[in-house]
C-alpha cells in the first residue's frame, strides 16, 4: 500500500533525475550504488576478524581485517567505474503484437567519458518485474536482446529498464533505471477468426485499364525492383548474376481488390485480431488489400508501409467502452516478460 503511494512520486523523481533518452551513457546522476547483501556480510566478517585479532592480540589478524576493509572501500570505486562505463542505445522492434513475445535490442555504444571497457555480468529487468535477463558484457557481443510481451494493443510507452551489476567482487550492487524514451505501437494479436465481411470492391475503371493483375500463380515477367515491394518476389538468382534488383511478376486471373473491414457481430477485440491475421496473410501472399475501419480507410496496396499503416489503424481503434478503463490503467505496467534472454 505504502509502496503504491510512493510509486508515482518516485517515478516523477526518476524522470527528473534520469531524463528519458534513446541513448544512455551512465554517469554520476544515473548510477545508484549500495553494498549488496554479501557486502554487508563481508563487513561483518571484517568486524569479526577485528574482534578476533583484538582478543588474540594478533596483529596479523588485525592487518587482515584492515586489508579487507580497505578492499571493500576501493571496490566501491571499482564497481562504480565499471558500471558507469556502460552506454546503451535502443533499437525498438519493428512490429510488436499484443500477447506475443517481441525483442528489444540495446546496442552498446562508446562511452564518451570512460575509456575502460565494462566487464562482468549485467542483469536487466523491467521495472517492477521479477524476471531478469543476465548478459555477460565482458563478451565481444555488443547487443543486449531483451524479450518482452505487451498485453494490450495501442501505443505504449516502454517502462524503465533496471540494469544491475555486482562486478567486480559482488560487494556492491550498482543499478540504474533507464527510460529509453520509446513508444511502441502494439498491433492487435493476430488470431485467425471469422471474418464476417470481406468486401470485394469492383472498380470497373481500374480493372479495364489493366488486364493482368499481378498475382503469384504463373510467371509473367521480370521488372525492376521498387522499394516497398515484397522481398519474396525478388529474383535472387538474377540479382546474384547481374547485380540488378529485379522482381518476378506473375500473371494471375484478374481478381478484385480486397477491402477488409471490421465485422459488426463479433466483439471488437476478436474482430481486430482476425483482421490483423488476415492482413498478415494477404501481405505474405502478396495480394493487395485495402482497409476500412471506423473513419479511416486505405486504398488497396501491398507495400510494407501500407501494412504498418493498416495495422496502426487497427491498434488505435477505439476500445470497447467496457474494457476501456481497465486496459488504460494497466497499459503502462502491462509489460510482462517471457522466455529466457
Amino acid at each position: 500500500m505504502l509502496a503504491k503511494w510512493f510509486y508515482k512520486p518516485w517515478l516523477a523523481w526518476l524522470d527528473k533525475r534520469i531524463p528519458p533518452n534513446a541513448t544512455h551513457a551512465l554517469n554520476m546522476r544515473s548510477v545508484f550504488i549500495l553494498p549488496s547483501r554479501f557486502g554487508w556480510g563481508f563487513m561483518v566478517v571484517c568486524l569479526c576478524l577485528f574482534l578476533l585479532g583484538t582478543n588474540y592480540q594478533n596483529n596479523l589478524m588485525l592487518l587482515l581485517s584492515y586489508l579487507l576493509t580497505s578492499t571493500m572501500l576501493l571496490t566501491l570505486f571499482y564497481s562504480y567505474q565499471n558500471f558507469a562505463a556502460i552506454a546503451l542505445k535502443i533499437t525498438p522492434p519493428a512490429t510488436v503484437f499484443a500477447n506475443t513475445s517481441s525483442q528489444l535490442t540495446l546496442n552498446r555504444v562508446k562511452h564518451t567519458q570512460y575509456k575502460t571497457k565494462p566487464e562482468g555480468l549485467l542483469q536487466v529487468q523491467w521495472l517492477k518485474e521479477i524476471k531478469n535477463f543476465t548478459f555477460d558484457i565482458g563478451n565481444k557481443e555488443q547487443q543486449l536482446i531483451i524479450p518482452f510481451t505487451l498485453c494490450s494493443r495501442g501505443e505504449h510507452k516502454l517502462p524503465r529498464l533496471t540494469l544491475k551489476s555486482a562486478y567486480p567482487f559482488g560487494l556492491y550492487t550498482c543499478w540504474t533505471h533507464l527510460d529509453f524514451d520509446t513508444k511502441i505501437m502494439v498491433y492487435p494479436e493476430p488470431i485467425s477468426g471469422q471474418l464476417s465481411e470481406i468486401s470485394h470492391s469492383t472498380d470497373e475503371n481500374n480493372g479495364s485499364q489493366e488486364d493482368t493483375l499481378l498475382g503469384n500463380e504463373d510467371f509473367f515477367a521480370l521488372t525492376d525492383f521498387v522499394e516497398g515491394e515484397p522481398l519474396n518476389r525478388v529474383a535472387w538468382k538474377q540479382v546474384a548474376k547481374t547485380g540488378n534488383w529485379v522482381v518476378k511478376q506473375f500473371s494471375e486471373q484478374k481478381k478484385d481488390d480486397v477491402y477488409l473491414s471490421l465485422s459488426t457481430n463479433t466483439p471488437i477485440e476478436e474482430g481486430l485480431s482476425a483482421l490483423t491475421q488476415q492482413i498478415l496473410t494477404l501481405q505474405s501472399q502478396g495480394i493487395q488489400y485495402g482497409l476500412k475501419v471506423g473513419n479511416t480507410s486505405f486504398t488497396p496496396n501491398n507495400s510494407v508501409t501500407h501494412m504498418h499503416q493498416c495495422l496502426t489503424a487497427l491498434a488505435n481503434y477505439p476500445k470497447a467502452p467496457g474494457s476501456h478503463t481497465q486496459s488504460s490503467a494497466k497499459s503502462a505496467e502491462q509489460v510482462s516478460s517471457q522466455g529466457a534472454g
Partner: protein
Amino acid sequence: MNNRANMLLATCFIVLTLSLITPLLTWVVLIAICAVIMQSALYFGWQENNPSSRTVNLLAVLALIALGWFGLSIGLLNSMINLLVLACALKLMLLSQTRDFLQLFCCCLFLVGCGFIFALGLEAWIGYLAVIALLFTALALLYAPSLSLRVSLRKSGIVLLQAFPLAALLFVVVPQFPPLWQMPTSKSSETGLSDTVTPGDIASLAKSSDLAFSATFSQTPPPAQQRYWRAMTMENFDGKTWSISPKRKQAESQLKNMGRKVSLAYSSANGSSDAASDSASGGGVGEPYQLIVEPNNQRWLYSLDISTENTALDNPKMWQQFNFALRAERPIVGKRAFYLTYFPNVPLVSELADFDTQLNLQFPSDSNLSTQAWVKQLAANTQSEYDVANRILQHFKTSGFSYTLQPNAMPNSPIDTFMFEAKAGFCAHYASAMVFALRVAGIPARMVTGYQGGELLSDNVIQVRQYDAHAWVEALIDGVWVSYDPTSVVAPSRISFGLEQALADFNETRNEGMFKNLNSAELFLSIRGWFRQIDYQWSRLVLGFDNQTQTDLLKQLLGELTSKKMTLFLLSLLVIVSIFLLVLFFPLRRKSQFSRHQHLYLTAVELVSNFTKVQREHRGSTAYFNLVESLLPSTAASQFNTITQEFERARYQPEAPEVHEATAASDKPANFTKSTSKANTTVLKQQERVMKDALSSLRKTLKLSGNQ
C-alpha cells in the same frame, strides 16, 4: 554455475586446510580432500552432478558426532577450527548456488584468520596474502565469467595492492585495544620451557633452534656472562623430578589477591651498600629494555636477573612473583612486546624468608644416599654457607666432570649416578645435584630455569633461542638469594660463548645428520643472519606493534599528543585518502588537450553535416572532407579543410618527434620527457587557436549561405 570460479575456490580451500594441518584432525583433512576431489571431478567433467544433499547431510551428522567425541580431547579452539574446515568441506560438496559460493568465501577468510593464530612469520603472511588474492580472483570470475584467469588475477591483485597502503594506515591509526574477552587458546601447542625438570628434558629443547624471545636494549646489552633470563623456580623435588612447588603457587596467588607487591625499591635501597661494594654501577638506576616474546601459550616471561615491569610504558598486564619471576596475566598467544627495566647487581632479598626457607629445605631423605653422605662429610668442617657452595663448585671443577648433551640415562638415584658414575651431563644435572647437595647441607636452595646468553643480532638486540635454555642454582644465605651456576665451572664457554662453543670444547655438536657442517659455512651463516634480521624487524614492527609503539610513533610524528592535534591529524589523513581515491578513479574530469581539438572538430562536423545533410558516420576525417567538399560553398570548404587538417595534425603529430628519440614512449604520452611535452603543448595550443578561428568563420559562412 561457474566451474572455473568453483575450482579456484576449492584450490584456495585445500591450500588453507593444508596450512592448518597442525590443529586439524586427520579425518577432517581427508573429508576436505574428498570435497576438493569431487569439485575437480565436476570441473574436469568426469562427473556430472554434485552428490545429493541427503548424502552430504548424513555425512554431516556423522562428522558432527565424531567431532563432538574428539572435541573434548583437542580443546575448544582446535574443535572450532576443525568445525569450520568441516563445514567448508561439506559446503564445497554441495556448491551449486551463488549464495553457497559467497558463504564459502567468507569461511575461507575466517580460515585465513585462524591461520594467523598458528603462523606469525613473514612467510606465512605472504603466503596467506597470495591465497587471499586467489580468493578474490575466484570472486571476480564468479561475477565476470568471460574474464580470463590472468586478467582477473591481475585485477584483484591490483585492488589488493592498492588496498595495502590503506590497510597499513588503518593499522597505524586505529587504536590498539586490549583483549575484550578471554578467547580459547590452543591446548596442544605449549612450547618452550617445561614446568618440570627431570634431567634430560632440557636436552630436547637444545635441539630446537626456534626463537624464544628477542630483547632490545636502548644501550649496550649486558655481557653474556650476566645474561641469565629467569623464567621459573623449581622448589619441589621428589628424588627425580624438580617442579614448581604447589605451595609456592598457592602463596603467590594469595599474595597477588591481597595486592602485595615485591618491593624492589626497598631491596635496592637496603642493599645499596652491598651493591656498591660489588660494582661501581649502583642498582638504583635501571636499564629499560623491550622483550618480544614468541607465542608459547604460557604465561611466564623471561627477565634478566633482576628486572621489574617498566611502569612508565604501556604494558600488557603482568605481575612480579615473590621468587622474582614475571608472569603475564594472559597466556602469550601472539607476539607481544613487554617493557621491563633491568637492575643489575641488586641483591635478591627474600621477603618471605621463613616461607622460602621452609620450602627450600625439603628433600626426600631416602633418595640419593651416597650424595647425602658425601655432602655431610663435605659440610662438616666448613665455616659458612658460602664455603659449602664453593666446595661443591670446586668438586665439579676438579673431579673430572664433563659437559655433554647426550648423558647416559639415570633412572634410579639420578643424583648419585651423576655424581659418582657418569660425571657427565648438562646444566640440569649440575643444577639438580648442587641444589640437592645444598639442601642436604641445610642451606635453603632452589633450581632456577630460564635461558642463558643469547645471540647478538645487532648492537642492541639479543635473540634467545630454545637451545639457550638453562638451569642454575639459587641459595638463600642470610636472607638474600645468591646465584650459583655449576655449569659455568665445568664448561665456562657455555656461559661466555654459548652452547655451540661449549659443545665444541667437548667434541660434540648440537646438530646431527647431514646438515652438521652447514652451520659453519660462511655463506650459510650470512644468509641465516639476514633472514634472522628480517624476521626480527617483522616481529618488532608488525607483530610487536602495540598501543605503546603506536603512541610513540604518533608522538614522533606530531609531538605531544593533544586531542585537537589528533583530530586535525585524522581529518587531514581522511582528506589525503579521499584525494588519493579521487585522483585514482576520476582522472577523466580533466580534459586533455587532444579532446579539446576533438571537440572543436566535432562541432565543425555537426555544422557541416547539418548544412550538407551528409552524416560523417564512421568515415575518417579526410574521407569525410572529400565527400562534402563539393557540397559546401568554396569558402566554407577551405575553412573546413583547415579544421580537418589541424585536427589530423594534432592527432598524429605528438608521436612524430618521439619516434626518433624513444619508440617505447609512443604509446604512452605520459612518458614524454618534460621538454618535448612542453613544446608539444605550445604547438597544440597554436593549433587549437587556428581551429577556433576557422570554426567561427565557418559558422558565419554556413549561416550566410543557409539564409540565401
